[in-house]
């Protein structure tokens, strides 16, 4: 991991999350290791059910019951062990030093309170300032996230705002306490193309100007390219490859990352068949043994069915969990 001397703001180690099922507990996140440096944007990429959203929820300790973070897991934020914090301590952190943005701004806002009031309440929950000061700060935040006429828009109700403006309100709320970490789960998936572009630019600019670290959960490599510094790819509950944006987009080594990138329709592919990854995305509880990708992998070898792949360092910043990559590096 390329953690600077100051140390990562977030360090996840051996994170495991399970849910009960008919036949014992089903693991949905399995021994995930991640670190994000201050000011860095890490994209966590994968298909549905890969565990990326549960990883984000774990950091906020919002894994829905009866889901459980396994006792061996470690999540350190700014040097503190998040998993041993009390409930009030954790609550103070959420919306304070850790901001959050979700996919659906429509369902995250209270429909009967003005959007300005909702941001003010969030500020007053965390800061000992006057109501007038909170209002002034809200108007300032609305301006910062590019909401036109912020003095007027603070009095608007959610239904009076477009999807793009509501997502800007959510970002303003998340940034209200100048968080050290901003977690964005599919922040632009529900938005139209022209609005998505505006919001991505906004997130990138905010990260650059405020020094906030960003964990971006997405399934879209286009979004990754616009916003991320580093990328981690998840498959069936595990991280299978990690590297800088340039490394993973230009020189992916894991067959899953390669397959994902090749299956995206590109202009050059016009008139040709798209490369597919065969089969279906396996559901939690039905993950194959050993390398979990072996059932869909076009280059699987005998060992892939038997042993868990170990971590191979491709470069100081890129690594992959793959038997083939390990063999290629040995040669």
């Amino acid at each position: 991991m390329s953690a600077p001397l100051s140390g990562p703001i977030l360090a996840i180690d051996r994170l495991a999350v399970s849910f009960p099922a008919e036949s014992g507990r089903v693991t949905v996140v399995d021994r995930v290791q991640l670190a994000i440096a201050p000011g860095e944007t890490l994209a966590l990429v994968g298909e549905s059910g890969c565990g990326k959203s549960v990883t984000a929820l774990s950091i906020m300790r919002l894994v829905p019951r009866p889901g459980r973070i396994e006792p061996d897991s470690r999540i350190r934020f700014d040097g503190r062990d998040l998993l041993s914090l009390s409930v009030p301590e954790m609550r103070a952190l959420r919306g304070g030093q850790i901001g959050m943005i979700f996919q659906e701004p429509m369902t995250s806002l209270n429909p009967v309170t003005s959007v300005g009031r909702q941001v003010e309440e969030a500020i007053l929950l965390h800061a000992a300032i006057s109501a007038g000061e909170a209002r002034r700060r809200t108007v300032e935040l609305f301006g910062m996230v590019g909401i036109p006429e912020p003095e007027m828009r603070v009095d608007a109700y959610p239904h009076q705002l477009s999807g793009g403006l509501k997502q800007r309100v959510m970002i303003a709320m998340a940034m209200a306490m100048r968080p050290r970490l901003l977690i964005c789960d599919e922040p632009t998936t529900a938005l139209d193309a022209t609005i998505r572009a505006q919001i991505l630019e906004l997130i990138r600019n905010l990260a650059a100007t405020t020094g906030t670290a960003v964990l971006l959960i997405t399934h879209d490599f286009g979004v990754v390219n616009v916003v991320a510094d580093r990328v981690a790819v998840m498959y069936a509950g595990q991280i299978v490859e990690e590297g800088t944006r340039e490394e993973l987009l230009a020189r992916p080594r894991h067959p899953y990352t390669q397959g994902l990138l090749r299956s995206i329709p590109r202009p050059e592919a016009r008139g040709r068949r798209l490369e597919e990854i065969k089969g279906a995305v396996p559901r939690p509880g039905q993950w194959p043994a050993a390398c979990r990708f072996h059932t869909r992998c076009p280059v699987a070898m005998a060992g892939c069915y038997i042993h868990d792949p170990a971590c191979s360092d491709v470069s100081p910043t890129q690594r992959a969990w793959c038997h083939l990559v390990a063999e290629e590096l040995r040669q």
Partner: protein
Amino acid sequence: MTASGNDVLLELRGLRTWFPIRTGVLQRVAGQVKAVDGVDLAIRRGETVALVGESGCGKTTVGRSVLRLIEPTGGSIRYDGVDLAALTSAQFHPYRRRMQVVMQDPGSALDPRATVRDSIAEGMDAFGIGAGPEERTARVAELMRKVSLDPETMWRYPHEFSGGQRQRICIARALAVEPALLICDEATSALDVSIQAQILNLLADLQAEGNLAYLFITHDLAVVRYFATRVAVMYLGRIVEEGPTERIFAAPRHPYTKALLASVPSLDPARRLIRPAALGDVPSPANPPSGCAYHPRCAVRLAECSLKDPPVVSFANGMCRCVLAAEERAER
């Protein structure tokens, strides 16, 4: 629009679908949401026409109006030369077989209590295709093989299949009645990218095999650029630009098309910047701006754009609804 030649399968002329806005206790009609407001579009046999635009632009309403799931307010829908909009619903029935739809969410498009066999055979029952249940079952097996599903699984229920497999079931069901046109409304949007590639390949195979035409309604421009023969860009109920896919992507004419294309993130790590796209937000179709509906968001608007309807400028192979395109052509 160049809709000449008898290979035209479906031709929309001035299609309008308006929804009344009712207010007050008396539910008086206070206005109209012009969801589709004068759409011209032609689809030839065996080609893929993409209808693109942002939410609320009316693209889904066009598809639903063609199928008469919503009754159009005006204009014509000519299928093989017959105006479907003028038919009674009994007269329309046989045409329904020719046009099938595949929607975004294969989960809710299938009856959870019906076996896959029954879901696929539903249309055959309705149109009297196949001599009896056994013949239909044999045909279901054939269709399942065609979309790469194991016919052995035909007695199972939708929840036992993955999202990609369910979309294959929906496609098999649509094909069962031998349509000439498949309306794909965000048919791959909810699928994972590795599964989307499988479905796009399947649709390409089916088209090559059966001369199927597709009306591809989507917001995903990467899919459009890869897959479509022609592209029509919609904005607030109207088509603002139409033409061959390569031309639209290489040299878009309408400022909205330009903004839309500029907002697609590249996958090239050397080109990460998104150029500034359209300004602000998409206005409500219930209260569209005057003149050119795009003018409040347009970076190159002229004074007259807020006052006058933009001219429809025809080109050798397509059209553009913009005063700048008219000037551009006049200069040549």
